[in-house]
């Protein structure tokens, strides 16, 4: 072995290189994930007269257009979901359609099924595909033309992105989460701070994160402009994958574990950019503007640097973030729709009543079932929240869920773009516990000031 020191992503890259041509590598794709938005790609391969090369490595799921309540279904949601079913069935692709117990948001449901594995390349026509990097996979979002290309060839032409390492030392303070860490990093380096880079996370604070927290962090890496985020796999990863329906088992798992143990960057591997973060400086974070980089600690104030964003948001420069009145709240999405997210929110909601409408959309049907079994769902209902079906819901608002114009929504989702939650909607991104705190008080509230219930008894049961 005479390799120069390589990063984890470079090792995965090298193991998947089919051929090099004109300075680009054709990479083999282990998992290709589809959702309703894949219709353009199916139209493209139909026009090219190409079959799907590896339907057994391709999986579909209905999530973007899945209504969180039957009465919010529209002609569009029905049509788009049917189109996915028809396209996947035509090409013998397994798809988790409405009614399938495995269904959920693609970046929640696929890992649950054991389809996300360390050392693999995973693509999906969705920018938040970066989520799967939490397992030590090289995972990134692609557009419809590339989806068509992967359907037809199982490969993708790529130029190796520059490598970037974000090292987070120390420990996250009580009351803060991976969501706060992600928003803190975005606030530090900006939404263009990692543009085009493959980000690798390192440091004690990263190793201390649960699998679900790692998914939240990698998910938000796209909001820094990165192509991907990756956490080197470790015992936390391997334990989480054990027993997942489609993950390797028995002798194959033993062989996989051997391969996975080698999945780390070499000492001396070089990075085009290095960023150091002290976890002790992370506070509960809240966005005040129309880009994820428009973010401040809950103890901070709205700055005067973005008049246009403040005009849209109806906020005044200098106003304290703590205390901004909200009219709605949302808990869910591929960022924060997992069981541990719901648990953190329920600890705030237990014994309290919501002051504004709170919609909860569990990240998957499996999360929803587990929450029913442990009584978590009951805590949300008792607090007056709406417990919806799983799907992208109010994170993307193309499924019947919408925030009214001018309304301010405390949201666990990933983008506070103008109109993201509906035309004229105003989004404040924060962690699940912070959204729960805002929902019970009717305004942005520092969750660290609210006594929380001890729900550790509900933690254990595996999905």
């Amino acid at each position, binding site marked *: 072995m005479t390799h120069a020191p390589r990063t984890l992503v470079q090792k995965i890259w090298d*193991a998947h290189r089919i051929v090099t041509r004109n300075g680009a590598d054709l990479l*083999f794709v282990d998992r290709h994930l589809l959702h309703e938005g894949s219709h353009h790609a199916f139209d493209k391969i139909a026009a090219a007269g190409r079959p799907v090369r590896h339907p057994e490595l391709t999986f579909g799921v209905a999530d973007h257009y899945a209504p969180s309540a039957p009465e919010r279904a529209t002609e569009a949601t029905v049509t788009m979901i049917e189109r996915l079913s028809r396209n996947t069935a035509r090409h013998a692709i397994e798809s988790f359609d409405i009614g399938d117990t495995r269904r959920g948001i693609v970046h929640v449901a696929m890992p649950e099924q054991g389809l996300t594995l360390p050392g693999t390349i995973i693509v999906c026509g969705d920018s938040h595909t970066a989520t799967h990097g939490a397992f030590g996979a090289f995972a990134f979002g692609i557009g*419809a033309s590339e989806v068509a290309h992967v359907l037809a060839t199982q490969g993708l032409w790529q130029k190796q992105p520059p490598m970037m390492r974000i090292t987070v030392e120390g420990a996250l303070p009580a009351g803060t989460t991976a969501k706060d860490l992600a928003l803190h990093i975005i606030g530090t380096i900006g939404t263009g701070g990692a543009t085009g880079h493959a980000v690798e996370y390192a440091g004690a604070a990263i190793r201390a994160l649960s699998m679900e927290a790692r998914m939240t962090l990698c998910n938000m890496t796209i909001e820094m402009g990165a192509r991907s985020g990756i956490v080197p796999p470790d015992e936390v990863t391997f334990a989480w994958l054990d027993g997942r329906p489609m993950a390797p088992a028995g002798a194959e798992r033993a062989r996989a574990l051997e391969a996975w143990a080698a999945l780390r960057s070499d000492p001396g591997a070089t990075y085009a950019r290095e960023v150091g973060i002290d976890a002790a400086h992370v506070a509960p974070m809240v966005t005040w503007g129309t880009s994820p980089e428009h973010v401040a600690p809950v103890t901070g104030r709205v700055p005067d640097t973005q008049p246009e964003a403040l005009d849209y948001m109806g906020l005044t420069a200098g106003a304290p973030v703590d205390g901004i009145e909200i009219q709605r709240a949302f808990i869910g999405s591929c960022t924060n729709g997992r069981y541990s997210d719901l648990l953190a929110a329920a600890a705030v909601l237990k014994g309290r009543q919501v002051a504004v409408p709170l919609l909860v959309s569990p990240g998957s049907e499996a999360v929803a079932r587990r929450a029913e079994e442990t009584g978590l769902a009951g805590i949300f209902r008792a607090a007056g929240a709406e417990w919806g079906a799983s799907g992208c819901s109010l994170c993307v608002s193309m499924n019947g869920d919408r925030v009214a114009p001018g309304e301010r929504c405390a949201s666990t989702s990933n983008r506070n773009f103008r109109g993201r939650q509906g035309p004229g909607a105003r989004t404040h991104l924060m962690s699940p516990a912070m959204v729960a705190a805002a929902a019970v008080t009717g305004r942005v509230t520092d969750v660290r000031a609210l006594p929380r219930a001890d729900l550790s008894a509900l933690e254990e049961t595996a999905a």
Partner: protein
Amino acid sequence: MTPFTTVTGPGAALPRDNVDTDQLIPARFMKRSRTEGYGDQLLHDLRFDPEGRPRPDFPLNRLPAPPALLVAGANFGCGSSREAAVYALWDHGIRTVVASGFADIFRNNAARNGLLTVALPEAERATLCAWLEAHPGAETHVDLEAQRIEAERLAPIAFDIDPQVKRRLLLGLDELSETLEEEESIARFEAAYLAATPWALPRTTAR
């Protein structure tokens, strides 16, 4: 894909950073098929008020004709992977977008649909942007072979581009047909890879 050689047409300035894909094409419009066209929905909620009337102060609404070239600020096309963001620009007549930087997936999507993205150093971008703000709809000329943008009385602006993206744009090449020439390499790789890493296959007993 339509080849891109030279394009002459009106230029427009959209002096904003972070023009995200939700602005370029709001999610609620994305159910259309490609043939139905997305041009009328480009930047919909910025161009039109809630009643559907054009906002008179929005730059694209002050042009005599739809632009062929658009200059924006930093981090253009950030957000989702939706290729419809490119379709909306293209269907509106835009063939070149100039910015100080582009989001990764957007830039890839553009290159695969014949839309030229030009990242300029900030000083040059700002000069072109200011010119088009002062002269909305002024004629621009983009020469991809020469890697040059001209705008009336401004000094010609040279730009960099990935040579492969340039080649494909100039020839209007479809990536898929090129890849299919690699069929043998793909088959050989797959056989070796799947034999060496059987664990990477989804376990099918769950079906």
